[in-house]
């Protein structure tokens, strides 16, 4: 029986999952990154270990957490510790990958979760602040950025730099004393971008089926670099993966409903 094709959120979750390799320790936040990580665990990466910032780690399989402090993040965990311990695991090289959303992402993968428009005191919109975002961006080996891509969310200049990516490009991240490789990929509804190995500027890596580089560029407030070879086409998620996503990972459609639930 044919099933409905993936909506943009489901494709995004599928693309996020594709960046997770079996055996990794994964630092999980709320929302689509959690959906992507659980999808990976239930499909190609059953041996990943989840770490949550409030102190939960390696929970027994169960319902999807609504919150990174909720019961599902420490469900029958053999060990549950403290927040500073969770971040220290990232600093000490025990976390392979983390996922981060933001209100703004720039061409070097720096993130803004503080305010939009104006300045610190005369902002247009004030946002939630750093949370654990700055800590993970500063410490984790591989950082994957997640966002719905348009020119305002991917601007030429951030209104505030909350969490460091590659700062001003080149070796500036390393010079600033930060740990890890920094952002390795950006996953949006359009596809997957990575960063040029030398300049550290964002470039197109792979695009979802049916879209093209012109569309990606039109949804970006700065010039996207093009890969040396051909742009990969990301396949649509196979039916069996979509079924797992819809029936096991997020059966309540908390995060994969499109258009999204009103928050």
């Amino acid at each position, binding site marked *: 029986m044919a099933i409905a094709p993936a909506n943009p959120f489901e494709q995004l979750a599928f693309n996020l999952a594709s960046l997770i390799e079996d055996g990794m320790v994964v630092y999980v936040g709320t929302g689509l990154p959690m959906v992507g990580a659980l999808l990976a665990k239930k499909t190609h990466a059953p041996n990943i270990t989840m770490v949550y910032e409030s102190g939960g780690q390696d929970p027994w399989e*169960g319902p999807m957490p609504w919150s990174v402090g*909720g019961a599902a993040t420490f469900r029958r965990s053999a060990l549950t510790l403290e927040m500073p311990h969770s971040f220290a695991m990232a600093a000490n090289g025990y976390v392979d990958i983390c996922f981060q959303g933001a209100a703004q992402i720039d061409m070097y993968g720096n993130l803004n979760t503080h305010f939009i428009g104006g300045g610190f005191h005369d902002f247009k919109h004030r946002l939630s602040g*750093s949370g654990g975002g700055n800590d993970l961006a500063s*410490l984790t080996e591989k950082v994957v950025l997640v966002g719905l891509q348009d020119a305002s969310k991917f601007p030429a200049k951030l209104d505030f730099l909350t969490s460091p990516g590659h700062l001003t490009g080149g070796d500036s991240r390393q010079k600033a004393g930060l740990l890890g490789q920094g952002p390795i990929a950006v996953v949006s509804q359009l596809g997957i971008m990575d960063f040029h190995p030398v300049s550290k500027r964002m470039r197109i890596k792979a695009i979802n089926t049916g879209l093209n580089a012109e569309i990606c560029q039109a949804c970006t407030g700065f010039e996207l670099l093009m890969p040396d070879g051909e742009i990969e086409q990301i396949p649509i998620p196979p039916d069996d993966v979509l079924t797992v996503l819809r029936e096991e990972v997020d059966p309540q459609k908390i995060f994969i409903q499109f258009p999204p639930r009103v*928050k």
Partner: protein
Amino acid sequence: MCVSSKFQYNEKALENLRIKDTSILDHLIDHQSFRENSLKKNRRKEDKRMSLKDAIAKYVDDGDICTDAGFAYVRTPIQAYFEIMRQGKKNLHFIGSPNTNQSYLMFKGCAKYSHNSYVGAEMRGTDRLYVRNIKQGRGIVLSEWGHGSMGQGFKAAQYGMPFVASKQLLGSEMLDYNPYVKVDTDPFTGQPVTLIPALHPDVTIIHCQQADMFGNAKIFGPAVNDIALAHSARKVIITCEEVVPELQLRFDPAFTVIPFVVVDAVVELPFGALPGACPGYYYWYREWWEWIFRIASKTDEAMDHYLQYWVYGSDDQWGFIDKMSQHMGGSSYLHNLKRLERAEEYLIEDKGVSFDYQMVIPTSEGGV
């Protein structure tokens, strides 16, 4: 800058934050006064139980630096915050990672200053009330942090270290808005580090599952920053689901993380984390959070009305629970909160337990 300043702050941050009188910053990092206070504390192992009303009246003073403990709406002493509001405490500083609950305290003038890390409720999004608090000057930000870097400040305090060197906050513009944090060079490696001072709040209220009458306390589930907070704050109030015999902790010391010596008051407060969750005990009251973030936070009038009803219109947690039961179809709702939490933790069989949540506010109405 300020020549008579007690401590040396990050001057660019003082300028950016428009802080002219730095004395407002001093208490948080004043280890000397913290230590003197500790030395004066009653050391005797005696029954420290008292009512919530008495504990808040005795140990929370206007202008204190108060913590947001637990994790926003997980094992957070929210019923104690409600009592702070009912007693009309004023001009508190709020610090915590996360620091979600400061918002409604700020709205009522109970909190005035913020050491900011995170405000909001994850998927429920930005807190519009906090945005208005800051915009209208009801709240003033004294410093900007990440969860982890602030947590390191509490850990430094717990372990008696004057400051820690960190790899967090480097390259972030938060450095320009945090008077307490400085960039320096690691004397061993020559690499850049941030220096984060030991942070000493005036008062912390920690909601635990179990404590004895002396203040030895157990935490189940994520401890978040609470072990560090209990050791770094000048005054420590434990609210707990149950007061258990001291012998129980002696025979089963696992999860005992707060020693009686640091504790000033023990309040037996069943359901003290409602409308948040308490691991092992009850789930969060999801509808309450949906109402406050999606409806009440839209206007000051609506928020005033909301808090009048739920906080000022309740004498204590039982009054709150009466209202909750009334709105949620009776007393079985409270039982269901216990069932949901325990099923999600897999302490009871979860097959057949539904975590389905029907939004109480139709999505078609006045889209947010």
